[in-house]
């Protein structure tokens, strides 16, 4: 059970307080409701580049990191399709330093041409290190445009290409900040060894005077239903063939989310999973075969990704996957197998909750989704799933007209 208290400042900042006196630490997690889905299709990668710039100093504070480190703290951030999330961990008695730093960069950022140029280079090197200079590093860059034709999930958070990153200008940075980085577009979680009263005082003191802004979110279109099978062949200097199949599924708040998550465990999680036993061990078609869901707020993807054994054709491998999916559609899953994946989920939730920073992030994201109670009720949603429900969803989802397939060929 994760306890919390939620309140809102006059400027619209949502604050969630979560007390834990078993730790000597305190965490500030600040989520801004802006991600790569808010970007212009011709200027992608901006939300993520912007995240880098947030560490470049603000109006009253020259060096964000140095001030934080001086108080014994550490921080980082990540950008997803939907959000940009910043977090700070400090010794509990120094948490006011965190309030000072986070509030100042919400109030007014200090961005100059040099820090923009440097961070563009850093992000371009990140692009190369993670996506270009790794075997199979560009799979995500290939599969998204295949699966999404209209919705901005069409591109990865890093951006479509390096040129987009190179072309950003200082005035765009400023207007992005003015629009999205407002108290009314953010969720602050204060978690750890700090009483509620202290938390309220610090929130009011440091964030209370920041003015509300007229934040406008981009009006992107939802993805229409896919009506035909899609596929693409890629040839690259990799040692093994790789097959990826991506099926459209519901969004994070849709009822099929939990069903899909369990389906993904039944097929692909651990050594007792079906794909591993049938296709990796018994038929020897793949050396690795994983399933996962993208977990985005808007309708996401159910992905199957596997490396083929040498000498196995794409056709044989793909047919075997389809056969397993067919079996799922025609045979009810037994209670034992369902209980197994539900138990796994409970373990994952409990282990995840050990860490106070994880709890803080989970609270922020649930509030962003629109139902903070999810942090406590989500496990029940998994327990409610029945064999019939799993079969229904599998029948609807695992059809070729709903699927994008990537054939990543090893160049001979």
């Amino acid at each position, binding site marked *: 059970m994760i306890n919390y208290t939620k309140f809102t400042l006059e400027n619209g900042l949502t604050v969630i307080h979560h007390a834990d006196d078993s730790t000597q*630490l305190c965490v500030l997690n600040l989520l801004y409701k802006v991600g790569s889905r808010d970007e212009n299709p011709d200027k992608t990668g901006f939300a993520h580049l912007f995240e880098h710039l947030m560490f470049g100093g603000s109006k009253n504070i020259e060096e964000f990191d140095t001030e934080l480190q001086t108080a014994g703290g*550490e921080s980082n951030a990540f950008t997803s399709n939907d959000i940009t999330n910043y977090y700070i961990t400090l*010794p509990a008695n120094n948490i006011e330093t965190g309030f000072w730093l986070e509030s100042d960069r919400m109030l007014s950022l200090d961005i100059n041409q040099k820090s923009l140029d440097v961070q563009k280079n850093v992000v371009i090197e990140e692009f190369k290190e993670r996506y270009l*200079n790794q075997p199979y590093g560009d799979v995500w860059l290939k599969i998204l445009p295949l699966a999404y034709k209209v919705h901005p999930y069409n591109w990865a958070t890093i951006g479509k290409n390096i040129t987009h990153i190179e072309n950003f200008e200082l005035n765009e940075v400023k207007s992005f900040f003015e629009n999205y980085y407002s108290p009314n577009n953010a969720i602050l979680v204060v978690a750890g060894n700090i009483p509620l009263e202290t938390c309220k005082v610090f929130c009011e003191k440091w964030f209370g005077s920041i003015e509300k802004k007229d934040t406008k979110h981009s009006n992107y279109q939802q993805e229409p239903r896919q009506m035909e099978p899609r596929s693409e062949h890629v040839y690259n200097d990799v040692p093994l063939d790789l097959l990826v199949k991506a099926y459209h599924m519901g969004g994070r708040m849709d009822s099929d989310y939990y069903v899909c998550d369990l389906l993904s465990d039944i097929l692909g999680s*651990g050594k*007792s999973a079906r794909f591993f036993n049938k296709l*990796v061990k018994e038929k020897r078609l793949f050396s690795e075969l994983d399933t996962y869901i993208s977990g985005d707020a808007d309708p996401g993807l159910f992905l199957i990704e596997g490396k083929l054994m040498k000498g196995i054709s794409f056709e044989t491998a793909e047919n075997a996957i389809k056969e397993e999916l067919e079996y799922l559609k025609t045979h009810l899953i037994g209670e034992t197998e369902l209980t*197994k994946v539900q138990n*796994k989920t409970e373990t994952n939730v*409990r282990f995840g909750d050990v860490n106070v920073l994880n709890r803080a992030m989970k609270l922020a994201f649930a509030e962003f989704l629109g139902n903070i109670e999810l942090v406590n009720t989500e496990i029940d949603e998994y327990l409610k799933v029945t064999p019939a429900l799993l079969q229904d969803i599998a029948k609807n989802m695992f059809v070729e007209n709903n699927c994008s397939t990537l054939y990543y060929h090893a160049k001979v």
Partner: protein
Amino acid sequence: MSLERNIAPQFHKVKDLHFPEYQKIEIKTGIDLYAIKAGTEPVIRLDLVFNAGLTRQLKKAESSFTAQMLSEGTSKKTASALADALDFYGAYFQTRSNADDAIASLYCLEKHLKSCLPIFIEALVDSIFPPKELDIIRKNSIQKLLVNEKKNNYLCRKVFYQKLLGAHHPYAGFSEKADLENLNLDDLKSFYKTNYLSGLKFLILSGNFSEITLGYIHESIKTCLLQNSIEPRGGAAISTILGKHFVEKNDSVQSAIRIGKLSIERAHPDYRKLQLLNLIFGGYFGSRLMKNIREDKGLTYGIYSVLESFQQTSVWYIETEINTKNREQGLTEIYKELAAIRNEPIGAHELEVAKNYMLGSFLRSLDGPFSLADRLKIIIDFGLSKDYYAEFVHIINSMSPEALMAISNKYFSAENIVEVLVGKK
């Protein structure tokens, strides 16, 4: 009164690092169970540490293959029956092999421990190494190796250890395809018998557990077959090939770089001082390498220096991946920084920031049951005092710029360096 945003709020320095109480229980001859209770969630992790790392290998890949094969079947259960039995309770059985040991861990909810522990122990004491499972693991490992060999940072790490320690040193024991192909069942069974059945060094239990759980684990391990009766083996000889080594990979857009040398063992009186120096040089986001090469010049996504201690030796290195066209500039800057930290005393403010950050980071690492268990393992592995972390506060605070300069001249000298570069010519 208006808010003075340009003045930092008052902060407090970390005054003491308190390592919480833990129990040490002798289960049988030479085997202790360490139990550290922390956290609020009803979860536990049980680590069994075996003398079964790279240093025990007679042939390459024995250690990692044996670790992988432990969950592949017993005389009573097939591999999939084992997996089914543990997965049903949502438990995780993980094995990993390291340089100096191998660890088998059970993660589960406390309420399922009685169902899971017997299966976990059965897998460890009655592993039968079915040939079919070895064949699968062998072929999958070869596929993984083929992918790794396409990665510049993997190649760079491999060549670095081979040049620094010698190609035959156990810590440089990277497998080739032929090693994976040639390993046979008898090798693995004999490795298992010597280093697992007779090689249990100690156990660590962490999480939020009851006394009943602790007693149950104690009894289960006491009555199982695992022993600690292994014959110690002497340290391996080190033979270094100093200087610059280049591995050509013409298809890459970035080059992987690793530069380093041998360093002092963890128990050395200078070790903790060197940790502080390394932090300042390249050990955190505010380090000199990061500030200069990433934040000022934008040459890389990340650059770090690392002090890595093994049982037999320690290694210190700098690692990064840099765009090919900026490679020379990056190298020049790295060596410039290395000379600078030897030749000029560290500024008072820079030192203050690093000290505070380091103490804060220790506080973070002593938070939560599993992080504490990892720290405790270091204390056990290296035979350190229980006050090892508490003493840090005093040692760090006593370091002056002059004292650190003496440390850098001792351990960051330009001599005895190995530099490995993997990338385009």
